[in-house]
């Protein structure tokens, strides 16, 4: 009897989460050390739009989770001739598309935050505090773009996959996406404390 196994995609995402966590831990410790290394740390208020972005990202996690759960619970399509056998139902697809748009909206919102800071004269090299702000937000957005790419890929592949593979794939994508939310909340708290 074969032993039950976890699936490789999910393991891969967990290992990826460990890697990303470690790298952000390195950035955080670098920030703590740099902040204490000299008395040139400049405080500045976070632009309010960043809190709206946070809500958008959290909402995207919720929509993704709703879609994923609906897909996991839904019975297989009855008429494969009309609808591809394992493709997500239109409503589930809508939840996933909504997630995708929320994700893109978040990244655009972060670009707006950058514009606000730039208008106030705060650039990457202005001060270590602004440098870490740009680094944290840019790297988080870059990782989220990876999630957006994965979700787009998942939606494109969905009509050609088995239901188990679909559930596993969207499970792994959701895991990564939720981690992006958790990571952003952590970074926001760190930035609020440091800035």
């Amino acid at each position, binding site marked *: 009897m074969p032993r039950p196994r976890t699936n490789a995609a999910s393991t891969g995402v967990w290992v990826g989460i460990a890697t990303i966590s470690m790298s952000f831990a390195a950035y955080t410790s670098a920030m703590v050390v*740099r902040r204490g290394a000299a008395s040139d740390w400049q405080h500045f208020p976070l632009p309010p739009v960043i809190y709206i972005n946070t809500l958008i990202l959290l909402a995207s996690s919720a929509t993704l989770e709703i879609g994923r759960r609906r897909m996991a619970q839904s019975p297989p399509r009855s008429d494969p001739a009309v609808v591809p056998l394992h493709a997500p139902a239109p409503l589930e697809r809508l939840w996933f598309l909504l997630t995708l748009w929320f994700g893109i909206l978040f990244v655009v919102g972060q670009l707006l935050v950058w514009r606000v800071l730039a208008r106030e004269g705060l650039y990457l090299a202005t001060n270590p505090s602004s*440098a870490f702000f740009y680094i944290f937000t840019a790297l988080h957005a870059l990782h989220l773009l990876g999630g957006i790419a994965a979700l787009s890929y998942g939606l494109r592949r969905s009509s050609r996959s088995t239901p188990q593979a679909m559930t596993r794939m969207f499970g792994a994508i959701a895991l990564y996406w939720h981690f992006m939310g958790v990571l952003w909340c952590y970074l926001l708290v760190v930035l609020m404390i440091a800035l």
Partner: protein
Amino acid sequence: MSDPVLRPDSAPRHEQPAAGAPRHHPAPTSFLRTHVFSLDHKVIGKQYLDLALLAVTTGMVLSWLMRIHLAWPTAAIPALSKLSPAGAAGGIITPEYYLSLMTMHGTIMVFFVLTTAPFAGFGNYILPIQVGAEDMAFPRFNMMSFWVTFVAFLVLIASFFIADGPAISGWTAYAPLSAVGSDAGPGEALGQTLWAVSIAIFCVGQLIGSLNFIATTLDLRTKGMTLARMPFSTWAWFITSVIGLIAFSVLLPACILLILDRVAGTSFFVPGGLVISDRLQPHSGGSPMLWQHLFWFFGHPEVYIAILPGFGIVSHILPAFARKPLLGPRVFLACLIAIGFLSYTVWGHHMFLSGMNPFSATLFSVPTLIITIPATITTLLWLGTIYGARLRFTTAALFCLGFVSVFVSGGISGFFLAQPSIDTYLHGTYFVVGHFHFVMGVASMFGIFAATYFWFPKMYGRMMNETLGRWHFWLTFIGVYCIFMPMHWLGLAGNVRRYSAFTDEYMQGMVPLHRFITIGALCTGAVQLLFFANLLWSRWRGPKAPDNPWEATSLEWITPSPPPVDNFGGRQVVVHHGPNEYGNGSPGHDYVMQTSPDPLPGR
């Protein structure tokens, strides 16, 4: 009667693959897909090994140039002036160009040889077969990992062909010199930026690779392949990938911050008021110590990324030639895990002289001494394994014994360096050069050689020439002792390292020994031609290899040599025993294959 070990394709396997196990990608047909952008872990493993061979040749030539200059500082190497008219005008190496050669030698050897060959190269080829998988968990990521690493190598090598030449700040790229640009010397402009970009790209490649190794080991093991039944080499690659995952995910941020300091005007590593080359640097408030902490948090575990695969390879190979099980297999695995864990607690011992708080030095000294305990235990386990054995002295076995020898020799000098008070004297001397070349460089290389002679028949379907192999071993073994043992004496006598020439009266007396070392290095390098000749000759002319030429027990030896594209010909392997069943078989067979369904004799 069907083979009870391998289930035919018609068995339920392909109908119900293990959850998460990807169905094997179809065999490629085009040249590009077969040999260049292949998804096959075996091709990718060979690509990594080819890259390592190219890198080690480059690194070795650089070391020859340095050694020639150290022994005969006025000797002209005409061809060198063509490569760098400024760095070697008339073929004579300038002190700055010497530092460039040193930086590139260290970087190429540590990253592109000692990391790629034993871990990414052999790990890629062998690990999936040893756990009974058809491929890595994520074949596309695997391919990406190699090509990203290859691009990193090209970026690094490109710095030889720019006007200022390669970076001069050493493989450790200490800030602030590495962060301030051309004021810090030739090579510190574009050359240093290329260095930082190359290492950042390399980190990405290794992170993807480590992720793949971990997922493959955890999720793609075949039926019956419990963790306890995994071969020691697979265990070592698995632990190495965990170490690599943590280490490279810290080095990558460090490199990104360094690049930003260099090109974007930030001040992470450069303090305020710093004057270099009579110019006030436009940075303020940064911490050079921050770079050192981030770098060595990666740098010390990197030592274990280089050496732990060697531990696994030796522990996998020695029992096959001792015809005895490895002594204390569980203790060995516990030691591997302990070393992996402790490797993250000792990074400060590289920084005893860097201005770190002296109390911190004591703090880092204690785990440095503690980590020698599991390392010593593993050495004793190897010695216990061969004690009383009727050892088959193949080339692979000889290189395993050589590994133990140089690891012990280099390890003993580590005891000295772990003491802050002694390290204060020895740190800037050739003692350290001898120490880390033995324990990290040569030991790891001997692991690579052992692995090559052991697995070559599986990889290419032909045997290597054993006579050439033995000559290669003995001459290399004598050669490395001639090179690196005298360096310990030079260091104890106060011979500083990183100098391009020894011109003052005190160090003049040491030049004859340096000449001896240089001759040793040139000869030992020439001996490697035997290895290259053996590789090439055996690849096409060697005698055909049987499936299991060494009468070994693990899964790579049940499949044809070389294995088919899906490793086991579309059949699922079922594992019944651990890999350590030597001297325990039925009459006429002193070993039990992992796939043998028979109960172990005497149990």
